[in-house]
């Protein structure tokens, strides 16, 4: 049973990846979104200070995440959902979505970090630390919005509801991320850094747990 559900998850992720490669819609769409947003920021403010840089980075991550993840439950029609249900089950399905969106979001974050440093200058001192933090942030953002996209997909009104439900929930995480990320701009070690990182990791684990427990209730119609 264990290896069976493992296989199901891998297959579902492969299917999502394949769809992505065939259609090349989400990836390039979001990529263009990232590039044009950052370009607009660059045209309006040039090279911002480091606090502004940090704040802009996380705000843009938030919008990228909403755009990238919101689509994930829209593609699958009702009939296809029923098909997945009969072959894989709700838990495998949500896990595959979580993993796929995390991968998507992490690559988006790395790309936008690259574009950021190209256009808006590079105020980072500990660049590897910042990459680690942004990957952790991408993980948390994608998990939360995957689950909220699942809720919004059931409530039909995708985009508006995602923003209404998601933004208040994500604020505490974004605040934490912004705080942790500050440590990458100076060589001074921040007090309580590991505490906050642990809190974030704990939150991510909590989201996965809740998604596994709660998604079956969303799924059945």
């Amino acid at each position, binding site marked *: 049973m264990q290896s069976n559900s493992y296989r199901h998850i891998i297959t579902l992720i492969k299917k999502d990846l394949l769809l992505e490669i065939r259609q090349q819609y989400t990836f390039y769409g979001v990529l263009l979104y990232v590039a044009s947003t950052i370009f607009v920021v660059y045209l309006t403010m040039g090279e911002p200070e480091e606090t502004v840089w940090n704040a802009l980075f996380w705000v843009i991550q938030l919008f990228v995440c909403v755009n990238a993840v919101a689509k994930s439950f829209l593609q699958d029609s009702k009939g296809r959902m029923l098909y997945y249900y009969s072959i894989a089950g709700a838990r495998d399905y949500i896990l595959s979505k979580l993993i796929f969106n995390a991968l998507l979001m992490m690559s988006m974050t790395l790309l936008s970090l690259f574009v950021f440093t190209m256009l808006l200058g590079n105020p980072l001192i500990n660049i590897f630390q910042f990459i680690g933090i942004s990957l952790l942030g991408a993980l948390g953002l994608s998990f939360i919005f995957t689950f909220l996209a699942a809720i919004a997909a059931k409530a039909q009104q995708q985009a508006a509801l995602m923003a209404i439900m998601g933004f208040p929930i994500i*604020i505490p995480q974004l605040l934490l991320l912004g705080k942790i990320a500050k440590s990458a701009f100076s060589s001074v070690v921040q007090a309580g850094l590991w505490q906050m990182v642990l*809190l974030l990791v704990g939150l991510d684990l909590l989201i996965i747990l809740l998604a596994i427990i709660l998604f079956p209730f969303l799924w059945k119609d």
Partner: protein
Amino acid sequence: MIRKNWWKLLCFALLMYTCIMGFMVKIPVLDGRMQQSIRNLFFHVPMWFAMQTLFCISVFYAVRFLRSQNPVDDYYSLEFARTGLVFGILGIVTGAIWANYQWGKPWSGDPKQNGAAIALLIYMAYFVLRGSMNDLDKRSRISAVYNIFAFAMLFPTIWILPRLTESLHPGGQGSEGNPALNPNDTSPEMEMVFLPAIIGWILLSLWITSLRIRLRIITEKKLAHE
């Protein structure tokens, strides 16, 4: 317990005591800080206790609904969230009045003010989500799921995060006490009013909610018969 009278009488007595003693009790003189405005402790802080109690009960009934699929559990969850939201708004307003005298302006972007505002936004989104669906069964199920998820995301962060950051409230980094109050600023006489105040306000919130739940059950029954 809901149908018994004793706790309603107790609630009335405690709140009368709070409202009288809250203005009479002798307060400590704190080198120019606080002064008489510290009496707001008996009104502002219990609002948050009531709100958190109600939200916890709301989540409890959301979990119960998912297990039982009984619509009554959903009404409980909904009404507890609604009254909780009202008490949250009261908490923000009483806090803003206090802050206006104490810190010079009603809103100073303090971590706890922001946390409270986030909590209110999340529970308002809960009502928007409920309003967006027409199918009754689906509405109850999905909003229960959101209720649990939002609770799990919100409360760890508002219990832990404000303790890590600098704050004008007590209980932040560098300031003493816990988020509810600073023990150094209160006297034993004040605590004799503060505890009854907390219990009194929580009982009042439960009373209001129980009335609303009964109203809702009657309304739904009537609608079902038509």
